[in-house]
């Protein structure tokens, strides 16, 4: 890395840093809202059945309380007529009601049945305790196997929300079987990964009020997703609803789709109360009711020739989608697109299904389907190396994808392939593995092991998704000398607004302090697409850079003609004063829209072509130490090398990698969401645990830069890839230490105890 000349590439402090360390940053629950009422949700307690009605305790004083059930609202009338549109949380499908109506079908525990608003939260909670929903239970679907058996139909007649089939190097199953039969040996495994709670520290929070338009503000990743859902719910035009993001205390995917539910509820209550309403979930409710990472079962077969080269890969992926479709098809898509891994294979078959169960809907969580399939293939690759007697890193080095190779979808890799740089970075720092055995501070014997993982992650939306989204960003010069970057990308801690400021400043030749990034509100910013999919820096950052560059060119052209000297600020200010080149609103700005790089081709029907504009690449080395008395796993070392194309802000990039790493390590050895009869039984932070300061070692983070030619300064994605691989590295290290295969996560001490008891 050479020293940067402009703001890009520098670890500038995040622009919202001081506000956050002083407590000045206002999250939704911190905002004063005159006359606000507090909303709470009455939820189902059965996994499947019917909602027969709501009983209100006559002894309770209901005079200050508003109770809303779906049958009390004028559906179909539309907002203009004082009513509502459709009772759905519109996402991909319209199968999920905002409120189950009396007489309607309950599909999961903690499903919203009624809403309550009161002047204080305490009164609202007391009122909720005085409500009893009448429910009739039916048999529920609680496992992937039950869903596929389809004795109870929840979605269609087969319970399959979505399926995909990828074929590479063969035309049909017979031809595939021939390729697999030719293998000298087949490595086969079935891998189970559990649900995972995002555990953002700010719970879901939203408010709504009416002020001409319907206004909604809150903690969210995607203001335009909420906007779209509310247009359907309210039955109104785009301008009738304004959605604004407030400072957001973590998302990780958990605030991608679920905020639309809270927004719908706030809007329904606001209409009923005639006053602003806010809803801030309690932690237990947030864990019990909102989306989590999809539990998955992945069956994986690797056919190897006599030299160990892969001749065929066969993968069968099933995700538990939960009760409604939500985002499961796209999560599954990303899961299957990564399922064959970054390895050379002439023949690949990947089948994927997302199925309906009576669990609360599973949804977006950092990695978005890829961590589940990455866990499977990186366990498989390790087993292959073990079976062949080849060192695991050497095996990966030999068979990983390089420029000129093709992926499972036939995408030929041309540029920004970080394989060799990642492999070299890990090899350089690896050092000798830890001593096999020893003793810890408790005097207990320990065994140690080392595990690796190598993986890739597509940056941006899949296939032609970015073209369809056609994201926009706008850069505006203002009369006060500042420049505003307008994009709907939200900052939920990942640093979006800081890197936007750096990119715009760089393009304009200004200091970053001259750039302002207003909070995204749908009446202020254009739709840049959602803040997901490792696309914000690469795609939206690219739009910001293009818009700023175009604006600079226009201002400089005018200034040259008008004989105005000085920097961009001086020239733009003069141009505004001269009233030249201003739009209908009197603003001097440029809006640009996404344009795909040349040569992108994707076929949705056959799932072939360029699945992603480019991939990030990563390698992870993990050392573990297992206490033989307690079977507790200590992760004693974790090296993570990630190719991000270009680190626009290296400290922010390191923070992304390290945060994702620890979420992945937590998923590997600590974090589990326990379901019983469809209900989360550990819905508290005490029992649904995530890593603390004490649970992880000092992390060794290596930023690798293999530039993406069409990203801003070469940047590609970073948000998700750190989540994908560390869990497999941990499982591989545990097999190295204990000689026992662990093919599920989380791998808890109880599992290790059971496995060792079974092995002895």
């Amino acid at each position, binding site marked *: 890395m050479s020293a940067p000349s402009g703001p890009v590439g520098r670890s500038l402090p995040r622009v919202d840093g001081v506000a956050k360390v002083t407590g000045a940053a206002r999250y939704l629950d911190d905002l004063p809202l005159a006359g606000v009422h507090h909303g709470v949700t009455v939820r189902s307690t059965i996994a499947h059945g019917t909602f027969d009605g709501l009983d209100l305790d006559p002894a309770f004083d209901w005079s200050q309380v508003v109770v809303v059930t779906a049958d009390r609202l004028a559906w179909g009338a539309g907002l203009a007529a004082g009513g509502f549109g459709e009772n759905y949380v519109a996402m991909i499908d319209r199968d999920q009601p905002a409120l189950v109506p009396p007489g309607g079908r309950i599909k999961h525990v903690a499903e919203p049945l009624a809403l309550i608003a009161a002047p204080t939260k305490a009164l609202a909670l007391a009122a909720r305790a005085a409500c009893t929903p009448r429910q009739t239970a039916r048999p529920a679907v609680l496992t992937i196997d039950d869903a596929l058996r389809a004795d109870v139909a929840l979605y269609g007649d087969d319970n399959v929300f979505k399926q995909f089939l990828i074929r590479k190097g063969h035309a049909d199953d017979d031809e595939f079987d021939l390729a697999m039969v030719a293998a000298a040996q087949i490595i086969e495994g079935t891998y189970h990964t559990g649900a995972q709670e995002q555990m953002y520290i700010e719970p879901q929070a939203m408010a709504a009020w009416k002020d001409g338009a319907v206004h909604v503000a809150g903690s969210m990743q995607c203001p335009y997703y909420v906007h779209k859902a509310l247009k359907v719910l309210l039955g109104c035009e785009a301008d009738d609803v304004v959605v604004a993001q407030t400072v957001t205390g973590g998302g990780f995917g958990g605030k991608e789709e679920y905020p639309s539910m809270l927004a719908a509820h706030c809007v329904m209550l606001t209409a009923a109360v005639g006053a602003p309403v806010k809803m801030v979930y309690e932690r237990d409710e947030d864990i019990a009711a909102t989306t989590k990472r999809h539990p998955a079962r992945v069956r994986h077969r690797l056919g190897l020739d006599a030299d160990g080269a892969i001749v065929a890969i066969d993968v069968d992926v099933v995700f538990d989608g939960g009760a409604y479709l939500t985002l499961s098809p796209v999560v599954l898509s990303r899961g299957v697109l990564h399922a064959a891994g970054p390895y050379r294979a002439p023949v690949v078959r990947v089948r994927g299904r997302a199925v309906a169960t009576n669990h609360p809907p599973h949804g977006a969580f950092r990695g978005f389907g890829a961590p589940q399939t990455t866990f499977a293939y990186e366990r498989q690759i390790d087993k292959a190396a073990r079976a062949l007697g080849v060192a695991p890193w050497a095996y990966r080095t030999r068979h990983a994808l390089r420029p000129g190779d093709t992926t499972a979808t036939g995408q030929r890799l041309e540029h920004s392939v970080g394989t060799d740089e990642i492999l070299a970075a890990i090899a350089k720092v690896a050092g000798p593995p830890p001593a096999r055995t020893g003793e810890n501070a408790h005097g207990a014997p320990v065994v140690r092991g080392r595990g690796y993982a190598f993986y890739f992650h597509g940056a941006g939306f899949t296939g032609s998704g970015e073209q369809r989204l056609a994201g926009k960003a706008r850069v505006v010069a203002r009369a006060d000398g500042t420049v505003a970057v307008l994009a709907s990308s939200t900052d939920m801690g990942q640093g979006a607004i800081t890197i936007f400021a750096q990119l715009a400043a760089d393009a304009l030749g200004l200091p970053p302090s001259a750039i302002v990034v207003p909070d995204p509100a749908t009446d202020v910013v254009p739709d840049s697409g959602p803040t997901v999919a490792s696309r914000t820096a690469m795609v939206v950052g690219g739009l910001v850079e293009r818009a700023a560059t175009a604006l600079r060119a226009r201002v400089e052209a005018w200034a040259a003609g008008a004989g105005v000297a000085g920097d961009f600020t001086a020239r733009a200010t003069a141009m505004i004063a001269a009233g030249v080149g201003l739009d209908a609103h009197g603003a001097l700005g440029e809006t640009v829209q996404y344009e795909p790089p040349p040569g992108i081709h994707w076929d949705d029907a056959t799932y072939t072509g360029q699945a992603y504009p480019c991939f990030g690449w990563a390698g992870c080395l993990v050392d573990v130490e297992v206490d033989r008395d*307690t079977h507790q796993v200590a992760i004693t070392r974790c090296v993570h090398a990630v190719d991000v194309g270009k680190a626009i802000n290296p400290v922010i990039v390191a923070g992304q990698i390290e945060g994702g790493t620890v979420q992945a390590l937590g998923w590997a050895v600590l974090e589990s969401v326990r379901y019983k009869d469809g209900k989360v039984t550990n819905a508290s932070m005490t029992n649904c645990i995530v890593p603390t*300061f004490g649970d992880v070692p000092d992390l060794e983070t290596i930023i690798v830069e293999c530039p993406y030619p069409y990203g801003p300064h070469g940047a590609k994605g970073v948000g998700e890839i750190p989540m994908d691989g560390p869990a497999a590295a941990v499982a591989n290290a545990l097999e190295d230490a204990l000689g026992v295969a662990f093919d599920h996560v989380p791998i808890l001490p109880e599992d290790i105890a059971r496995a060792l008891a079974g092995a002895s």
Partner: protein
Amino acid sequence: MTAYLRPTDDAHAIALRAAHADYLVLAGGTDLLVAAHHKPVPVGILDIAGRFAGISVDADAARIGAGTTWRAIATSAELAATWPILPAAAREVGALQIQTRGTIGGNLATSSPVGDGLPVLLALDATIHLASVRGARAVPYRAFCTGYRTTALGADELITAVTVPRPAPGTYLGWRKVGTRAAQSISKVMAACALELVDGRIAAARFGVGAVAARPIRAAAAEAAATGQPPTAATAAAVAAALRHDITPIDDVRSTAAYRLEVAGNLLARFVTNAGRAQG
């Protein structure tokens, strides 16, 4: 309106307790105030935080006031010198914010089966000191905790102190908490020991175990298996086997009965072999 009483001194606290047996007695509040905003408002609160606090050590014993915080215990050099497993256990109660508020007396009054300070008190043969306007009395912890979260504390009584005798020379003290994670965790299994070694044999053994029965208990069968034996691997195995007669672990959201049974045995066995190594 909730009455809120804060006594001016320890005697006043005892008098107020007698006068207001229906009040909530609040020390640090780290257990009682979890989700306080969802709990019924008590008729009155007797705030004894800061009362009965302090550590003193004499030739025979350490006296730890009931209101002593875990943080004070964790950082006590006097305790560390002679009863190191007390500060060690204190450091593993929640994390700093819990340790600065939570008290040893609160842990005793709650007597949860997962109370982090309790196995150590069992192993150290602690005596619990209680007082009321009727007078003071002292009971061993085994007699104090009567069942799942029940104690012998009278409605008009307060816990005033815990005393732990000075261990006999050559006593090996051990402590280990196995939680759900490294810190800020609820215990899956806990064990503490005091093994008095005389002439290469365990002359007396006390094992305190937690999270493996309805209340923190002394492991009598395991103690019997250790007593009179040399601290060898064979004795360790016998102790672990005997422990199965002492405990009744369960499956719950944090662990399994099988795991608790195995690991509790391993912890006690390790204490025995560590004791053997400690004596050289």
